[in-house]
């Protein structure tokens, strides 16, 4: 809890206040074209043929993204592939619960 919120609640005598677990924030994420561009940039994510190699925790999502990119046309790559990426985030978040 933020220290200023905690201090205010303490002054109000509200010591049992607990934050509510809100819905999955992934649902709120828009497919920003910038994010899609970064996911297609080899300087950021490496080459597509390395998608199956062991990487940071994002490897599953990047693999899904690369598969979607390979199947979709160039006009559909950005939005559709990013949605697949974000969908993968949501699925992973659901599985972790």
């Amino acid at each position, binding site marked *: 809890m933020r*220290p200023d919120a905690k201090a205010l609640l303490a002054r109000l005598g509200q010591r049992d206040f607990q934050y509510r677990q809100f819905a999955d924030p992934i649902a709120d994420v828009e497919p920003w074209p910038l994010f899609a561009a970064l996911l297609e940039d080899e300087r*950021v994510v490496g080459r597509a043929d390395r998608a199956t190699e062991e990487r*940071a925790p994002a490897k599953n999502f990047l693999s899904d993204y690369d598969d979607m990119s390979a199947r979709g046309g160039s006009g559909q790559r950005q939005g559709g592939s990013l949605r697949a990426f974000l969908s993968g985030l949501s699925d992973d978040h659901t599985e972790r619960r």
Partner: protein
Amino acid sequence: MPLILCHSPVGGVGTTFLTARLALGLAERGHDVSAIDFTHADALKLFFGMLPAQEIPAMTDATTEGIVVDGVELLSGYAAVQSGAFGRLIARSGASPFDSERIVIADVASADLALKTSLLPHAALHLCTLVPQPTSLAALAKVQPGTPTIDLEQTVFVLNQVDDTRKLSRHSQIFLRALFGDNLIATVRRDEAVNEALASFQPIARYAKQSVVLPDLAAMTIAIEARCGLVAATEPAE
């Protein structure tokens, strides 16, 4: 003791701020810390309550008495780099120019890629600051040419100036967390009190003790300390 290299491909994202706060945080936890300002802007000292006209000793000048603020030794490295002395020092094969007894945190300007490249082999950790803005995010492609950014093992990212009331800021945080996982080592929220404290020549903990950045910075310090394999000698007072 490790060198922590603070450099971002984009300027104005808070690299100097985080360099200073990391140095202060580690010193508060009992470590011996030196913070070296390699930038022409010479702004690191401001975060230690010094005036712009006050000078900090050059790192290669053994004749000048050192300046220690809140446990952090402050040094300037700009002149040494410009003169070539630092380049010659660091080029000595097999030798690190840094005192082996202290943690050294280096603030390197975004445009100074040559210095960043020369320091990186000596660094235990590269701290790259980002902000949730398109120019900073686009610069993810520029962190280390020749190596995909998500493959950088020596680099950790701090997302600075996060504002949860702004959509792109929230989404950037989620995106970067998914992209980098634990290599997004910390997020620091935006608080104008940081600038106000700086303009007042006061530490943020005194100017605004309820500032949201304080717990964020504490968490960042602990995470970086652990990442470097360091153990706190003392726990800071509550």
